[in-house]
């Protein structure tokens, strides 16, 4: 594999590239699902190829091929240079990369059990047990489960001398119970929507998730929602569970801090950002309790945004994004670092596979837990009136990441410090900075989890990658609730 990258770099240099990097990536995936007591699908896939990224005439070019033969690799490198020279016909300034030491490294995701050594029978047996538990609940009309493993091995070499071999594993599983009755479809998911919980770990992730143990409760909640009251409209104190807060971070902090969005590079598709450059270091993003980092290092945890080096050879880092409520950092790359006065990239460039150009992506963008011990039950006990919401159901935010609306699968009214009646169809909405400034409590480390969002889309052609979001339950004051059903 490594020889292909050498061939590509030599060919790109010979054609006039002033910088080149080449990534050979080999991806293996297993995907299993069940539906209503039967296997939904069982599939495996492999993908292998090389992507060559070059700068020539001061502009970018990228070409990728699945064929690793000498002739094709050299042709791909030559094509990348040709493309870069075409790019240079419409440029305003030459591309410059922030300096980066040329790393030579090997790294593999720490894991206890390689998920691909587990048998398909074992995997399906677990899913079908969960499926049966859900269908044992009267009123459940559809039970779906899923499990997914991925192994991504990459060889990154650059014309500056970087030589990095990484192998990343990710594992995810989860399930959903649906109940259709009358004129309503209700659902509950475990441990999260988006296919459950995903982390960069081995099969031990699955074994620790207590999938079977929670299936009946989740199914019962889906059915019970049909008898619950509609979540009211109005202004309320809300408490969000960690998984919903993880998505709130993803949408209203993770995306707006992407420096390529801020600089207008995503204006046609994903959008721009309200976080214009002059706000760095000045904007009060949230309350004093809001501390957010973008941390790709293993010591932050096994998130979907954890690695040793990004896809342009920059070592994993932790960047303070919001510090005691103040906006302190963006997600950056070697090309964009200079726009915020940084001497070095923040190390966030990632690609979906060998055939995609690396771009700025969230790593693990996490809110740090509260320092004082506070459990979810203690937080609810300390809340006189409010609504506790769990598990995302819908999400929408404008193209500057300022106005958002989220729906959750389930909620409970909080009255005098106690969870009382169940509420269906909860939703809340707001303006990003007003929302984060309204946070007045966050649970401590023992409630904190590093949630995985496996389906983050960005770029043209669109790339889907996984991101991590550490969060613990938190409380927000004076939040608009119920807008999703307003006027319907």
């Amino acid at each position, binding site marked *: 594999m490594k020889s292909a990258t050498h061939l590509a770099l030599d060919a790109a240099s010979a054609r006039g590239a002033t910088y080149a990097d080449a990534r050979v990536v080999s991806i293996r995936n297993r995907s299993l699902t069940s539906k209503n007591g039967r296997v939904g699908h069982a599939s495996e896939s492999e993908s292998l190829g090389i992507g060559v990224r070059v700068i020539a005439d001061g502009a*970018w070019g990228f070409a990728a091929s*699945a064929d690793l033969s000498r002739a094709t690799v050299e042709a791909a490198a030559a094509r990348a240079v040709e493309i870069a020279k075409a790019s240079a016909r419409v440029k305003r300034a030459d591309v410059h990369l922030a300096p980066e030491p040329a790393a030579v490294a090997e790294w593999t995701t720490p894991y206890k059990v390689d998920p691909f050594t587990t048998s398909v029978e074992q995997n399906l047996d677990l899913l079908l047990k969960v499926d049966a538990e859900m269908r044992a609940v009267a009123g459940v009309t559809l039970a779906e489960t899923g499990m997914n493993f991925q192994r991504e091995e990459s060889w990154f070499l650059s014309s500056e001398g970087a030589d990095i071999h990484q192998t990343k594993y990710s594992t995810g599983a989860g399930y959903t119970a649906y109940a259709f009755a009358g004129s309503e479809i209700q659902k509950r998911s475990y441990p999260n929507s988006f296919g459950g919980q995903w982390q960069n770990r081995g099969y031990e992730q699955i074994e620790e998730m207590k999938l079977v143990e929670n299936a009946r409760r989740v199914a019962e909640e889906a059915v019970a929602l049909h008898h619950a009251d509609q979540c009211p409209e109005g202004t309320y104190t809300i408490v969000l569970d960690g998984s919903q807060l993880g998505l709130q971070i993803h949408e209203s902090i993770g995306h707006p801090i992407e420096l390529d969005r801020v600089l207008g590079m995503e204006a046609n598709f994903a959008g721009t950002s309200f976080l214009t450059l002059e706000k760095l270091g000045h904007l009060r993003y949230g309350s004093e309790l809001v501390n957010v980092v973008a941390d790709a290092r293993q010591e932050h945890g096994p998130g979907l945004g954890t690695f040793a080096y990004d896809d342009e050879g920059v070592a994993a880092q932790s960047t303070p994004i919001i510090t005691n409520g103040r906006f302190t950092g963006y997600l950056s790359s070697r090309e964009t670092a200079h726009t915020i006065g940084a001497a070095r990239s923040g190390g966030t460039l990632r690609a979906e596979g060998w055939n995609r150009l690396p771009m700025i992506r969230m790593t693990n963008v996490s809110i740090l837990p509260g320092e004082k011990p506070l459990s979810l039950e203690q937080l609810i006990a300390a809340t006189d009136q409010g609504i506790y919401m769990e598990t995302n159901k819908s999400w929408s935010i404008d193209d500057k990441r300022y*106005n958002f609306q989220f729906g959750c699968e389930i909620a409970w009214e909080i009255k005098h410090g106690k969870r009382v009646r169940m509420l269906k169809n909860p939703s809340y909405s707001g303006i990003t900075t007003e929302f984060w400034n309204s946070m007045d409590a966050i649970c401590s480390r023992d409630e904190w989890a590093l949630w995985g969002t496996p389906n983050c889309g960005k770029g043209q*052609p669109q790339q889907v990658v996984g991101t991590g979001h550490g969060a613990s339950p938190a409380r927000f004051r004076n939040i608009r609730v119920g807008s999703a059903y307003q006027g319907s």
Partner: protein
Amino acid sequence: MLTREQSAEVFDRIRRFSSADEVEAIFTGSRFALTRFANNTIHQNVEEENSIVSIRTNFGGRTARATANQFDDQSLRRTVAASENLARVQAPDPDLLPMPTAKEANAAGEGARSTRFFDGTAAITPADRAEVVKRIVSVADKHKLTTAGIYSNSELREGIFNSRGLANWHHQTLAEISITMLAEDSSGWQKLNSPDVSNLDPQRLAETAARKAVESAHPREIAPGKYTVILEPAAVLDIVGFMFWDYSGVAILDQRSFLNDRIGTELFGENINISDDAAHPLQAGSPFDGEGMRRQSVPLVENGVVKRVVYARATAQKMKHSEYAGKVGPIEPTGHGFPLPNEIGEMPLNVVFGGPEKPQGVEEMIVSTERGVLVTRLWYIREVDPYEKIVAGMTRDGTFLVENGKVQCGLRNFRFNESLISMLSNVEAMSVPVRACGEESFDMVVPAMKVREFNFTEATRF
């Protein structure tokens, strides 16, 4: 990219390597190039070539799939073995059918279909794309705007072969242009694609996007509420696309469709007619489904009444023996299945809205509007309520106040929470349907629509 002949040779090897009762291979080959620009400069410029083979094996009612992009014997043997190993450990599925023969798959005939492969599209070079981007940037410069967007071209080959003699093949091209023009506090957008690049006029798209950016400058904020809206075709496509997953036999059987208990009822206004027609001259894509079955033209909605849904082979068989038989309209395989095995069955992917008796262009709709909102594009649409089909989203890149028959000014963007049932019951006027593309849904043939009482629930700050 593998040719049809090369794919047939690979399939012969796959058959030799397989011990399954039946084997199927889906081949997908693509050469894709995209030039991306922002801040009036090309900042990303990519090209890729890939061929994929996806192998499905059947053993006595058990099936599974394995996929790879390498074609040497060792890789193919490994992929066949992976598929067989996944299949063998399952319990037999009583609903699994034998793979279709060529006769069964092609019984519906190909229909009157013109080519979707155009040499002019396939031959576009990086220099050609740069030249077009340069012209788009010139339009931006002329209007003192900043532009961002893409210009892409691709060539796609799709084939399906199975051990019962099926061998269907499709070859097409696609060119696409998307342009955003940005001013200080406003923006405009246009997007179009076609198998034939000569159908795209980048200059006109750029000028239209620029006009929208200029005319929506200094946007006013008006209170959210229920407004008459004029949705341009891309906005219609992106919002209505969220209901077509439910026009599926499996969705009915799973009781996750908003059409459960509603097929045969007048769910929408009587001016709404919708079909799925892969052979429509404004459509693109393959003429066969994930099992190789020819895609048939299916009337989904007639005069506001939901007539039927689409079916993969196994779904049709299951539906015929279900409690829903007799309540869901005609039940037959329609050539809309996804590759097996899957949980979602099928869906219409070549949606065509019927034209109105008296079509009105967007300008005519504006003239007849006392007070309303003209919407260029919708964004970040997600389902809020699966049965009432309420979807949430935002307006974007050109939202205007219409008063007294004229566009008055740009507006700050809105959030909407709108039921598609309600929306399609409140359509007052439609244009001639056109091929449209957006970002939230698949390409369709849709009209612009004037809709009363569209539910804007919040305004954003820009």
